[in-house]
């Protein structure tokens, strides 16, 4: 495994999600992350960035949001991996969202609400803070 970091700048466009996922996987291969750790960081970032793109700019959707930027940073610092997502979307703390009822029987299971739950289950530590006009979400996970 190799220590290191990457900063990825994305625009608030659904087409950027595939680019993010590709870069995250390439990063994981380069740094020789264990498969499970790579899967977890890939999925957590995919879910959270997708949410920012789909919901974070929803109210202000229009031409002026085209320039909105989402900054994703990943840092391999054994024994830990850290990620950070900074976005200028509306204030939103995913840690305040209640978990879906994962005990419900099939016919009662709801389709939504899986993304944030997955991110929280995949990561060891998650913190949200509001910084001026930005949301800052930091996630960390023990590499194994």
């Amino acid at each position, binding site marked *: 495994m190799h220590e290191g970091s990457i900063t990825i700048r994305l625009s608030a466009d*659904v087409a950027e999600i595939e680019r993010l996922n590709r870069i995250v996987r390439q990063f994981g291969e380069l740094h020789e992350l264990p498969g499970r750790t790579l899967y977890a960081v890939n999925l957590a970032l*995919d879910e959270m960035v997708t949410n920012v793109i789909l919901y974070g700019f929803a109210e202000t959707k229009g031409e002026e949001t085209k320039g909105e930027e989402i900054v994703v940073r990943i840092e391999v610092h054994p024994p830990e991996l850290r990620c950070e997502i900074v976005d200028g979307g509306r204030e939103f703390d995913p840690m305040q969202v209640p978990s879906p009822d994962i005990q419900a029987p099939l016919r009662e299971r709801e389709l939504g609400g899986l993304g944030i739950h997955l991110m929280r*289950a995949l990561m060891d530590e998650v913190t949200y803070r509001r910084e001026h006009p930005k949301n800052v979400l930091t996630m960390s996970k023990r590499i194994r």
Partner: protein
Amino acid sequence: MQTQEESLGDVTVLTITGHLDTSSATPFESVLMEVIDRGERKVMVDCGPLEYVNSAGLKVFLLAAKKLETLDGQLVLCALSPSVLMVFEMIGFTRIMNIAASRDEGLRMFREQRAEA
């Protein structure tokens, strides 16, 4: 994401390969719904070559399982990789879906249901 369809007796097997994510969830949903709409009731998805699934993909599995249940059919998933299985566990899908370690075990799940009926 790519899918391939086969018939094993009255079971329709869809093998899914690659990444099931936000952009491929819709095409995958179309494939599964087409199979159900044409009348298939025993549907197995072979997830052996499935490398990645996110919540958009998970919703498609849930949707198909729900739909088949209301039609007295059954969805079986088989050969999930350890990472994909971990995700299914995290959201409780291992409790509400038929998940088999292998194709053979998956086929037995359909047979067992028939025996009960």
